[in-house]
């Protein structure tokens, strides 16, 4: 338990650092990019005086209170769930992100879990049947691990996407058929969501699975050399049980490595969303960057960080659950 407490402390500290970086950057960077952003906001016509004032307060531009006061206010706003105002979307950042987040989390959650489960299982089989034809999966997995997410997305669009050239099986744009169905708890909507999620999810799964396969395979090979696997064999246990003994132990480092993996998957998903115009956080981040809407960019950064930290904490909790040695006080 103490180990978990320490991890939580690290995550809280990381969150604080992220938030502070987000606060300091617009105020600290020379060359005043903020001025340019505000000018653009003003000229866009969407942003009225109050809107401009809100942005200036958020970014520390043209504000005459001390940095410390601004910081305290910033933190206070944060704790109240106020992430500022986005001029390009003309809405509070928090509500915007609240509408984007479910798309991202849904895709991310499903894809990551599927990828981890499938990749780990394949890794186990590859390690157990080492020297068989399955070894051909190795270079394939290495290649898929190296391929950039968004490039894979482009390839999948080309082959399977409706806007591509070959098979035209799956939709390749947006989260659902924005022209054809109405949002709500109806079947066509849900069906459309699933259909539109296929290619993005497939991209994330294929791109991330390679890493899980290789990681589990290597760990399993190392674990299979342990005495307890040999003893399990010597005990006359069924092969499935022996594999389970090994896999269950090999899983541990893989779960703890999951925390690092999730960072990479999140990064990849952002790019995948852009390619598919999938209405999640990543896609709107792209839009915000293009529009120089710094408040939205910052808000998204903070939220993504918090999501990843939460996922890390979850992985740590799972680790404690599956490794009895971790429950001991350090």
């Amino acid at each position: 338990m103490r180990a978990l407490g320490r991890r939580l402390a690290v995550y809280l500290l990381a969150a604080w650092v992220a938030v502070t970086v987000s606060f300091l950057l617009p105020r600290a960077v020379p060359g005043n990019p903020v001025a340019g952003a505000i000018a653009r906001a003003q000229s866009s016509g969407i942003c009225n005086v109050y809107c401009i004032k809100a942005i200036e307060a958020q970014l520390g531009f043209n504000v005459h209170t001390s940095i410390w006061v601004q910081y305290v206010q910033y933190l206070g706003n944060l704790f109240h769930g106020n992430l500022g105002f986005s001029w390009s979307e003309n809405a509070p950042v928090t509500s915007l992100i609240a509408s984007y987040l479910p798309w991202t989390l849904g895709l991310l959650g499903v894809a990551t879990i599927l990828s981890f489960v499938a990749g780990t299982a394949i890794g186990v089989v590859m390690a157990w049947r080492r020297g068989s034809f399955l070894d051909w999966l190795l270079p394939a997995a290495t290649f898929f691990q190296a391929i950039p997410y968004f490039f894979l997305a482009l390839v999948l669009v080309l082959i399977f996407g409706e806007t591509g050239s070959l098979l035209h099986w799956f939709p390749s744009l947006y989260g659902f058929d924005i022209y054809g169905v109405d949002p709500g708890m109806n079947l066509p909507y849900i069906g459309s969501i699933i259909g539109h999620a296929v290619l993005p999810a497939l991209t994330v799964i294929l791109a991330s699975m390679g890493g899980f396969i290789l990681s589990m395979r290597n760990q399993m090979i190392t674990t299979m050399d342990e005495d307890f696997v040999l003893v399990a064999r010597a005990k006359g246990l069924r092969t499935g049980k022996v594999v389970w003994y090994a896999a269950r132990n090999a899983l541990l480092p893989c779960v703890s490595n999951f925390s690092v993996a999730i960072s990479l998957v999140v990064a990849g998903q952002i790019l995948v969303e852009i390619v598919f115009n999938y209405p999640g956080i990543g896609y709107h981040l792209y839009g915000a960057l293009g529009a120089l809407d710094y408040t939205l960019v910052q808000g998204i950064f903070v939220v993504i960080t918090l999501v990843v930290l939460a996922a890390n904490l979850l992985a740590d909790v799972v680790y404690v659950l599956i490794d009895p040695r971790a429950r001991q006080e350090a």
Partner: protein
Amino acid sequence: MSGPGVSALTSPGSSDAPEFAPGGDVDPVLEIKGLSVDYGFGDNAVHAVAECDLTLGRGRVLGLAGESGSGKSTLAMAAIRLLRSPGVITGGEVLFHSKRTSAGEPTPTLDLLAAGEEELRAVRWSEIAIVLQSALNALNPVSTIGAQFDELLATHRPELNRASRRDRAGELLELVGMTADRLRSYPHEMSGGMRQRAMIAMALALDPQVMILDEPTTALDVVTQREILEELMGLRDRLGFAALFITHDLSLLVEFADDIAVMYAGRLMERAPAASLFRAPRLPYTYGLLHCFPPMHGERYRMEGIPGSPPDLRDLPPGCAFHPRCKWAIPQCRQDVPKLEPLAGSPREVACWLHRGTATAPPELMLPDPTAVRTRSVSVIETSGERAV
């Protein structure tokens, strides 16, 4: 490898273990004949074990002694087909003579080297069990002892229900001097001694006929080592299993084994009843080992080690592998590999040219075998000839 540093000698074996009578009247339970094991293949193959013959008598304790790299673990693991890749068995037979004759039990004699997977599974653990050096590595770290017992019993004793399995596991733990509530512990929550006991209890779970103990106490402190070994021997007396006890510590074998076999560079070099080996070694190597450590009592003498170091198995010297380090080597030792053969008029075996044919062995290697009457306290290694004081 260490020699005896203790002064008190218990009589090897127990009161009801059959005497190793001249004439080799032994009821074998595991017969290893001409076993050869290589690591790798072709020109790069390392001959880890070369043509070893070993017979484990029913209910007897056979000690297998040798330095690291002498091939003793390889021999034992290969005999039960548990050797890891790239080990390859290149010759021999391993006959397991089961005595159980009730219906459905394994057939009386099985050549383990020719057996298929199912036959091996039928024999493994229920007839032949192993105990390894480090129980921390040999027990599944993420599973409680109770769960591991449960899996074992569920696989081999399907007629038992969960409650019976738990009871049986508890009984087994009590057999080795632990309490049944330890079933809920994880391996890392127990001390080294307790873990080793748990391993032993698990090995005994199915009442095997043969126990192979590969350095079972090497990882433990001396006090715990003794406790566990004495308990093991007590269990052996009660349950009557045969044990192949592998270790580098000759002193343990002298106390706990009935017979001792000595391995060097992959070959068996000497085999004798424990007391005979200890008091009257025939092999120069054994002699050297026994004199590596001074005894606590008796005359002082200049310690001799064994000069040189063990050979690289890939580059063995011609003839007897030990000859470069042997102070009594004769020309024939450099040419021909000595075979393990019985000495005239005794069941002892030795692989040494000094004891064969026209050669005369030095007096140090010709001490008389101790008689059947054994005393409890022997404090002096009998020698003859000069000793530097």
